């Protein structure tokens, strides 16, 4: 906020209705390059829907989404991917018929408009990505043999394989134990250091409060707060509607 950098991602009056049901109402959001934004809110508040709208899986009812000064609303997901936005899914979506390495190679092959043609080059790059997310040793495993943590890592790896500039992460820490969460947080920090901007949907409060530069809170499809973690965690509406005990529990 207030930073005078170029607007990396800019959402204006983003509104999404399912039938008569408003899932997102006039959401505004600005993301600068290199930021980590935490996106929080109770279940059903519209976080995942917001991701789906940004990535083009759902058509927008109204509003505008600009990425690097270019309108991307209405583009198909694969076009948005080519523009440099990657994402993970809350329920991991691995390609079960492929090995871990092959999963990542899909993104390497197709993630950019001009795909990597050379197979060996693609394989090397994919292996690097796997090393970065800590799956280097499991590259030939079947996806079905992976633990939950590894599946989440694979989600990250697949997203990274498209060489995104902006990454939308949907609950990559859910269901993991504290040690695993720590590892993932470290991984995300490294990714940011590597130049990737992150928007993180997360329920694990202490982790997201630690990680994020800024926190956005969604409630019933509306943005009710936006600011540095310390500020947001004291916001009355946020505590009432969402954080409350849960935050205390998580912090404890």
């Amino acid at each position, binding site marked *: 906020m207030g930073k005078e950098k170029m607007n990396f991602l800019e959402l204006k009056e983003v509104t999404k209705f399912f039938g008569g049901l408003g899932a997102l109402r006039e959401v505004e959001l600005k993301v600068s390059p290199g930021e980590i934004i935490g996106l929080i809110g109770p279940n059903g508040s519209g976080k995942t829907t917001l991701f789906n709208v940004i*990535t083009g*899986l759902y058509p927008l009812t109204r509003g505008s989404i600009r990425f690097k000064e270019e309108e991307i609303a209405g583009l*198909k*997901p*694969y076009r948005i*991917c*080519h523009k440099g936005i*990657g*994402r993970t*899914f809350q329920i991991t*979506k*691995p*390609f*079960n*018929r*492929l090995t871990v390495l*092959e999963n990542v*190679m*899909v*993104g390497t*092959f*197709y*993630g*950019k*408009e001009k*795909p990597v043609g050379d*197979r060996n080059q693609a394989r090397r790059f994919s292996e690097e990505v796997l090393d970065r997310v800590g799956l280097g040793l499991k590259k030939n495993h079947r996806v079905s043999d992976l633990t939950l943590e590894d599946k989440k890592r694979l989600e990250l790896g*697949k*997203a990274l*394989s*498209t060489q995104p500039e902006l990454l939308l992460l949907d609950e990559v820490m859910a269901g993991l134990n504290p040690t695993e969460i720590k590892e993932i947080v470290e991984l995300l920090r490294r990714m940011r250091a590597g130049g990737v901007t992150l928007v993180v949907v997360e329920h694990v409060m202490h982790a997201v409060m630690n990680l994020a530069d800024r926190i956005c809170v969604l409630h019933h499809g509306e943005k009710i707060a936006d600011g540095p973690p310390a500020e947001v965690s004291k916001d009355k509406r946020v505590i009432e509607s969402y954080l409350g005990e849960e935050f205390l529990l998580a912090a404890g």
Partner: protein
Amino acid sequence: MPNKAYAKIPGLVALLVLLAFLPAFLGPYSMHMMILVLIYVVIATSWNILVWTHQISLGHAAFFGIGAYTGALIYNAWRLPPYLDMLLGGIFASLSAVVLGVICLRMAPWALAIATLAFAEAMKVLVIMLPGLTEGAEGVGIPPLFGGGEAARTKAYYLIFGIACLSVLLAYTLKRSKLYYAFTAIHDDEDAANMLGINPTKYKVVAFTLSAFFVGIVGSFYAHYIAYIDPHAAFNIHISVEAQIMPLMGGLYTVAGPVVGAFILTLLGEYLRITIKTGYLIVYGIILVVVIFYLPQGLIGLAEKWVKKR
């Protein structure tokens, strides 16, 4: 992995050599059956490509029929070389697949299955109702391939053998190509594939087109070989059904599966027909049920299990 692939080569070469020298050993009837087997090898292999993208077609008879009619009508009109006819049959089938693919792509797999079935029926109606163009329900006769007779049959065998090899080679190459990654990603999770930069529509149409191409070619080959084609035979739902049963029996998603399935089921079907006089289709049905219950991965899956155990 590479070792395993090399281990297959001697067997494969032996099989090809055997098939290449088969005409020397077989009587005319067995040759006829082998030609039918190879026709089904092509159909099953081609159909299986579509499955890689999780699209189920119940209407491959449409591509077969389009190929057959293209071949027969063009040959009767202009007497082009049969090879060219077959190529044109494939091209027309592919074109129709592009149209069908573009129309049906947003459908769920089951809806697509029914839509393709309807497409085949609609094509049959079209052929019947346009007798000026197609000679309608009475069917079209064509001079037999290579002039008929036994020598012609051997030639026909090598021709279909070549076509079958090409279609299997296409499947094999595809399986090892970049395209296979896109196909499988779409198969397993279309949204996730989309988010990794894959345009599902495009690759589904590609799969449809490739899948239809060789089926159109063998449709045209069939018309030339049998020397007579009619709408009910060309757009026969049994072709569409066999196209699915064979890969399933052999092993879906694999390259060898449809080939094995086509061999076994064509020969088994004929064997049952001539040995069990009444109700052999009951036995065929029972075999189908047993395969689905006890061999869901097909014979290739079974073979791989054996290999692993050893």
